[in-house]
């Protein structure tokens, strides 16, 4: 299951979660974001014990996007104990995404 975050829930989830959190910065009007959404769903259910996946709509939460210098979507940032440990920009296949996150969760 993928949580939809807002500004308030963002910090809470980042620091309260023991497993790494992958945050997907997205928006409703972004085609490549739509293409990667089902892939993130799959990863979320396959790795539910190792990884939390959350989404944040940049349209509604611009401050968070600015805080993390997100200027392109989809951007997926992996946070380990609240710290950014990896950043993946652009839509891609499940295999390619997992490869980029290999060993990090």
């Amino acid at each position, binding site marked *: 299951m993928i949580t939809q975050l807002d500004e308030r829930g963002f910090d809470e989830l980042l620091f309260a979660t023991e497993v790494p959190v992958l945050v997907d910065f997205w928006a409703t009007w972004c*085609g490549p974001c739509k293409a990667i959404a089902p892939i993130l769903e799959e990863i979320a259910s396959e790795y539910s014990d190792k990884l939390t996946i959350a989404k944040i709509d940049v349209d509604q939460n611009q401050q968070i996007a600015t805080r993390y210098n997100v200027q*392109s979507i989809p951007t997926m940032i992996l946070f380990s104990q609240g710290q950014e440990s990896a950043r993946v920009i652009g*839509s891609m296949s499940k*295999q390619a995404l997992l490869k980029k996150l290999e060993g990090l969760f």
Partner: protein
Amino acid sequence: MSTDAVNEVVIIGSGPAGLTAAIYSARANLNPIIVEGEPSSNSDQPGGQLMLTTEVENFPGFPEGILGPELMTRMKDQAIKFGAKFITSKVTKVKLTDKIKRIWLSDENETELLAHSVIISTGAKSIMLNVENESRLLGYGVSTCATCDGFFFRNKNIAVVGGGDSALEEAIFLTKFADKVTIIHRRDAFRASKIMQQRALSNEKIDVLWNTEIRAFNGENSLNSVTLFNNLLNKEYEFDLDGAFVAIGHSPNTEIFQNQVLMDENGYIITNNGTKTNLEGVFACGDVQDHMYKQAITAAGSGCAAAIDTEKWLNNNIS
């Protein structure tokens, strides 16, 4: 891994050409398999170049216009309705010179598909400038997708690089967010259609830097400026910029077919006598074999032709 069944036809690519070929060959009971590609943020993705566009105004049958991604979703739905099967994967390797054609996929199992005939409709991908810092700043001010990233440049200083229809469409789209959009074009005239040129040039928010090339992107964490070169005055200078959208053109996606399928010097597949390639049972349609028209409707038209040519070939050659 290999699946033993020999498919009647495998279609590689899922833009307007591939999907039209899918609709026609599914209706002809050829049970087509479409290897549609993988998600990406450039035009090399399922649905093709139209997935990154907004309003399509020149596809017949839609007087009020239709969104590019919506048009492609509808074409895919239409192909599925008639039984076409889709695989979300890329093709990594082919062997098309034998009677039974072999196609390897990019999935974990490296699945191998067998086919009596193949329709190539892999289209073209957007090309990058290949200048300093371009790949490092991709996603940090340098973008290939105006519809994805325009939002982040509200009231910022932005530019579109290129002079074709897609560059001008992006520039016009980006005026929704920015007060000023600069088009940077290396020639003294646009390649784009008259109607797009009129719209862009009459738009008060759009400025054009003619005869100007980008030499480098500059910036630490995000784009701050570009190094420009005016090729008329032979002058290099810095230009402040927060966002640059690259739309300089396309090159055909034909790397995997090299040394098997005959191509011209620019990598476009050569077709003869309809959609036939140099190989028996291998057909090509859409932008992968068209450097002249490059329209959704011409791609769809040639996709239809490829399906008909394939059906005829199968009838004559495979019992």
